């Protein structure tokens, strides 16, 4: 579904990604994990085009994603939903308007159609009763669920999550992960940058471990956690699990 070939990205002197290649198939739930500064968020942002890679190509369904080919590129990007660490909801709009905006403006749905879809998705994330609230009156967990619903309104084939629970209070992490788990159950292809090892192990189908801008290990979740091959992955896992 998505194929990344020889991706390189530098921020000045910093080599955020050094020759990264990755392929994700339909229905996979891939967890990108690694120490901070390993390049996992940069990789995710490059896949969506929020960062422009210095080198390398990205293919969606075997078709090159080329920013020069504007119309096509726009359409390709619209197949991906993106969820941010800091939610990035529109604070001046109600929850319902947050969900309706791009549906009416980008997909050209009528207000009724959009609202129907929005309410359906709010129900799915368990926030139907918050449709008229403003984002600043929601808890972090609720904001993130709204953000997920907002991305889903666009009918993406694939969802990208950039540390979706890192900005949340501990007691709100689960409600967000549950929503993501439910998405996975329904067959959504997902790439998740996360520090939630429990989620990566139990819900994720595959783990891609990055360090210093390189993919060090790429394995099925259970195998990665029970039997990591590289020293760097072993070292990382020994640091994140407190025993």
């Amino acid at each position: 579904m998505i194929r990344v070939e020889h991706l390189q990205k530098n921020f000045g002197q910093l080599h955020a990604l050094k020759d990264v290649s990755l392929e994700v198939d339909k229905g996979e739930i891939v967890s990108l994990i690694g120490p901070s500064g390993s390049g996992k968020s940069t990789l995710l942002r490059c896949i969506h085009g929020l960062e422009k890679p210095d080198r390398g190509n990205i293919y969606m369904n075997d078709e090159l994603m080329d920013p020069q080919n504007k119309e096509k590129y726009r359409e390709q990007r619209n197949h991906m939903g993106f969820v941010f660490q800091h939610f990035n909801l529109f604070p001046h709009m109600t929850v319902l308007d947050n969900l309706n905006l791009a549906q009416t403006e980008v997909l050209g749905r009528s207000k009724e159609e959009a609202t129907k879809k929005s309410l359906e998705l709010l129900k799915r994330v368990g926030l139907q009763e918050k449709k008229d609230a403003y984002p600043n009156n929601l808890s972090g967990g609720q904001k993130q669920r709204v953000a997920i619903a907002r991305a889903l309104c666009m009918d993406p084939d694939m969802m990208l999550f950039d540390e979706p629970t890192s900005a949340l209070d501990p007691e709100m992490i689960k409600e967000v992960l549950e929503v993501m788990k439910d998405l996975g159950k329904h067959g959504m292809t997902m790439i998740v940058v996360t520090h939630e090892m429990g989620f990566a192990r139990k819900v994720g189908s595959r783990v891609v471990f990055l360090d210093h801008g390189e993919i060090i290990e790429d394995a099925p979740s259970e195998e990665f956690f029970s039997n990591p091959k590289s020293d760097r992955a072993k070292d990382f896992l020994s640091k994140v699990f407190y025993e």
Partner: protein
Amino acid sequence: MFVALDKVFTMENVLYLGKGALISLGMAILSLLIGLVLGVLGASAKRSRFFILRAIGNFYVEIIRGTPMLLQILMLFSVVPSIYTAITGNVLRINVYLIGVIAMSINSGAYSTELIRSGINGVDKGQWEACETLGLSSWQTMKLVILPQAFKLIVPPVISEFITLIKDSSLTSCIGAIELLKASQVLGARYYDAMSPYTLAAIFYLIMTISISYIGKHVEKRLAASD
């Protein structure tokens, strides 16, 4: 000090000063509005992809902010008639209020450019990214997401720009506009008492500026409702 207060403080004179105050207020309102239009253009230029537009925007702001408004008014007052004469061959009977409003608008436009630009920059970068991932065009993003939020940030400094303009409209007295300050000087000369009409003028200025501050605070509160 107030040697002729009783003679100055008549209904007729107060109305005369009141008329001057209305002229000051009118010039300030017009300049603020035209200045905001120029500010939108200036901010767009400064944010443009094109170097030449950015350069024009920067040039405008730096030239205007770097010179006194009084000088700008005086230059416009002397330059416009000579250009008119050069082009048409006729002598221009100049309307000093019009010149005043033009000069103040151009001046205010430079400050508004910076206000609007910093308002737009003040909106969280994540908002642009969220719009990008939802497929909104940059124009849709600007119109529907960024400007409504920037507006809230811009209101307080625009209120203080308005107050500045009311006070600075007094500079047009130098080219003969009979606004509030000039009106008080006229009364001062008539009664050989400067302090009494000046004090009345100060009171008129304060009534205008304090009212605007008050309204401004009210507007800010209403805008903050969704925060």
